[in-house]
């Protein structure tokens, strides 16, 4: 039989009390922090999983932010495109009106004024911004893709740096904008196209008699000896307004990472939306304006087809944007679903189940109180009490 001594009983009671206090404290920590894991050794595997899940959650919320940003771009693009469609629709109506036999030169001029404002509107649309970034400029988001600018040109009888001269009429001369330096040509003077009809003026010469202009290509054809004389003398000075496309590469893709390893393009370049080369929306509108300006019914009529083509291109681009919007919406929904399940998973590992822990707490607290009570009863009596 084991001898039981006072010291043993005392040590046992103390150990038991200490253990119970420890458990009480652990439970209290869980309750007050709401976390099952407050340090890695609480649950090494759980800690590892919890860290994975936290990172996963952080990534998901980041993807969600990226998606929202992409949706912002795309919805701005969509709005701009649908406004553009309405504008082109109006351009088309005016073109049909202008190709009417009965219209007079004055009436066509009035129509031209309205088309001019539609042209300005279209340039403004091309320069739509989202959070201060030009959305049709590719990655050159600080540069407007198209702008309406004033320019000057000059023709003399001696070939200039661009190789332009007028020794005798009739002759067709390409206009260079001498007021600007640009990288599109070797000399740095940009070659002019898309001149706004009606804005080109030459002092001393009359449009129609002395010269004619191809506004889309930016060429002037001088017809009379007056022009030759002027070129040989003081030189022919031209001023005009034109639509200029930025010389920068506007075809950059803007990508957002929307899912792990998946990026989605969120921009539409100006080439896709407004056309490229000589087939831009602006070519179409200026073609119409030229017809209206020169009061040429055939030209006006001929301009309807390019306008139609531009509208088609616009619609295609709009569909393209629409499909991207749908795709992002789908990804966004998926992201939210994943987010919910990840949050649940993370919470299951890291968070306290209050009902369980509170009932644990009550249990432990009762054991604790019982151990104090019993301990105090056991420690007290000795034989001395009864001698």
């Amino acid at each position, binding site marked *: 039989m084991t001898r039981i*001594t006072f010291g*043993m009983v005392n040590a046992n009671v103390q150990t038991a009390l200490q253990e119970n206090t420890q458990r009480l404290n652990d439970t209290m920590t869980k309750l007050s922090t709401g976390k099952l894991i407050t340090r*890695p050794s609480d649950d*090494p*595997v759980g800690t590892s999983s919890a860290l994975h899940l*936290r990172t996963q959650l952080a990534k998901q919320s*980041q993807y969600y932010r990226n998606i929202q940003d992409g949706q912002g771009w795309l919805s701005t693009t969509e709005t701009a495109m649908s406004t553009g469609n309405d504008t082109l629709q109006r351009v088309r109506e005016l073109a049909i009106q202008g190709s009417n036999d009965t219209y007079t030169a004055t009436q066509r001029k009035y129509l031209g004024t309205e088309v001019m404002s539609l042209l300005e509107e279209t340039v403004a649309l091309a320069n739509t911004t989202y959070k201060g970034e030009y959305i049709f400029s590719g990655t050159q988001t600080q540069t407007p893709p198209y702008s309406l600018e004033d320019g000057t040109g000059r023709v003399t009888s001696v070939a200039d740096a661009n190789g332009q001269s007028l020794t005798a009429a009739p002759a067709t001369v390409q206009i260079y904008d001498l007021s600007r330096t640009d990288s599109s040509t*070797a000399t740095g003077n940009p070659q002019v196209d898309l001149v706004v009809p009606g804005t080109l003026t030459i002092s001393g010469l009359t449009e129609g008699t002395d010269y004619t202009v191809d506004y889309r290509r930016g060429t002037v054809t001088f017809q009379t000896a007056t022009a030759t004389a002027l070129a040989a003398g003081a030189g022919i000075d031209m001023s005009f307004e034109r639509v200029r496309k930025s010389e920068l590469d506007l075809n*950059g893709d803007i990508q957002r990472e929307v899912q792990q390893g998946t990026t989605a393009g969120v921009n539409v370049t100006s080439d896709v939306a407004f056309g490229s080369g000589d087939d831009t929306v602006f070519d179409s509108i200026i073609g119409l304006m030229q017809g209206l300006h020169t009061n040429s019914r055939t030209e006006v009529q001929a301009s309807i087809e390019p306008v139609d083509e531009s509208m088609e291109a616009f619609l295609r681009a709009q569909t393209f944007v629409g499909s991207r919007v749908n795709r992002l919406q789908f990804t966004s929904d998926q992201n939210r679903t994943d987010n919910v399940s990840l949050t649940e998973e993370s919470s299951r590992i890291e968070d306290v189940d209050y009902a369980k822990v509170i009932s644990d707490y009550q249990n432990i607290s009762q054991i604790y109180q019982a151990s104090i009570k019993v301990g105090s009863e056991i420690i007290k009596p000795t034989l001395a009490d009864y001698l």
Partner: protein
Amino acid sequence: MSLSEALNIGTRGLVASQTALDIVGQNVTNANTEGYTRKRLNLQSMSRLDGKFGEMGFGVDMVDVQAIRDEMLGRQIQEVQSDIGGAEATDNVLGKIEDIVSEPSDTSLSSAMDDFWDSWQDLSNNPSDLTARQAVVDSSLTLVGRFNTLSNDLTTLRSDLNEVIASDAGEVNQLLSDIASLNKSICVAEAGNQNGMNANDSRDAREVKLKELSQYIDISYTEDAQGRYLVSSGGSLLVSPEGASSLVVDRTTVDLPNGTQYAQTSLRLSSTRKEFEVSGGAIRALMDARDDIVPRYQAAIDKVATNLVEAVNEAHFEGYDLNGRTGTYFFAPQTTGASDIALAAGIENSPALIAAGTGGVSVGPGSALLLAVPAAGATIDLTATNAAYRNLVEGSVVVTTVGPPAVTLAEGADKDYMVDSVNGEIIFNNYAQYAAGTAVTVDFRYNKVGSAGTGDGSNALRIGQLRQAALADGGSATIANSWAATVGGLGAERERATNSLETLKELGTSLDTQQQSLSGVSLDEELADMVKFQNSYQSSARFISTVSSLFDTLINMA
């Protein structure tokens, strides 16, 4: 047998009972004294030969005062004690590392890394936005700060461990000299030991010191003929019959990888001047923690830092900043680990230098004025004018003589010149119609390599995507996963340490209980003994008074 002999028997009984009561008193009052072993008075009946009856009782004799202890159990307790000391120290250090790492939490390294990657993604959404750039700088500074703090805290922990080792060595020295002096008093007290001459209380005290000593180092001991303990550890005799040797703390300055230094302690024996091999106990565990555990986690954190710096810098180096410049680092490239990770110079104050773009090609105009056209077959190298003048746009080269008249030369194999557009060279074929030495201007367009515009966030996205790239553990895990595994490993190691500590403690408690059961004072037992010896005292006294009345009777007869 004479009456006076009977009186002697009674007296012996009185003295024995009184001594037994003294011992009861000693036991009861020392019931709570640490290491106290209960004492027992061993009694023997005295006898002598009587002619008639053979052996006749001659009263009671006190043989000795015996301390009730089990030597084997004592040794077991010492051994467990040194294991407990070691496990406790290991558990304690791992707990501190857990505190330092403080995962999982919202301020931990993994949270800081998450914020860091997120800020790059945000930047890729708004590459031209200086606020987004500043946010990258801010999150990076937080991350760098977190790394630095982790590294500093672990280094501080290492130097703290050195201090603890030094102060523990002081404790060991004190205990060794205590044991040596107790050895001396036991030796003196028990000198010429016939029987019953036990220095029980000094022995108890020595056991306590020995147990304390075992917590610090793993010891073994033997008892010599004079009752002295010869204590040795790690192959060295620490307490010899002559006295105790002591441990001397040496401090060696150790260079850390980041250029700072700290004083590493080692222990030397004063007697032999040789290094003291610590074989167990808390000091061994502290040294292991200092030389293995802490450096292991430090290395893991350093690895995370260098992996991150390498990957981010590699991508950043290939990107373009807002000014169209490339070939710069984001983190200081000389980073060796968590202690010295920092942002590259300039980035902190100029977020515009963050290379968020991948760069692209844009076409730009170029021109060169060449004063003297060389002879036929010779080459003009445009890159001599400007190193960027290469990759010329086909057909864009216009060569004009400086007039008047200004004549434009023709390009072609059978014409004036040919162009090597890739290298930016113009080869003159035939210029017979122009005098050698004629000045020409060359105008052209060339492909400029540079930024693809401020809206280009693709490099920031590339860096943001490094989060899920397998960059760590030899390309088998992401940085975050590798760190999570390290943290999980830390948790598991601590859990093991805590479990083994608890197991050892339970073993220790069980052994203590056994010792208590054998050597501890039971008050009930002592009180029962007290009553017993009280009665026996009273009985002896009664016996004496009875013998005395016999004397009276005898005297009154006369």
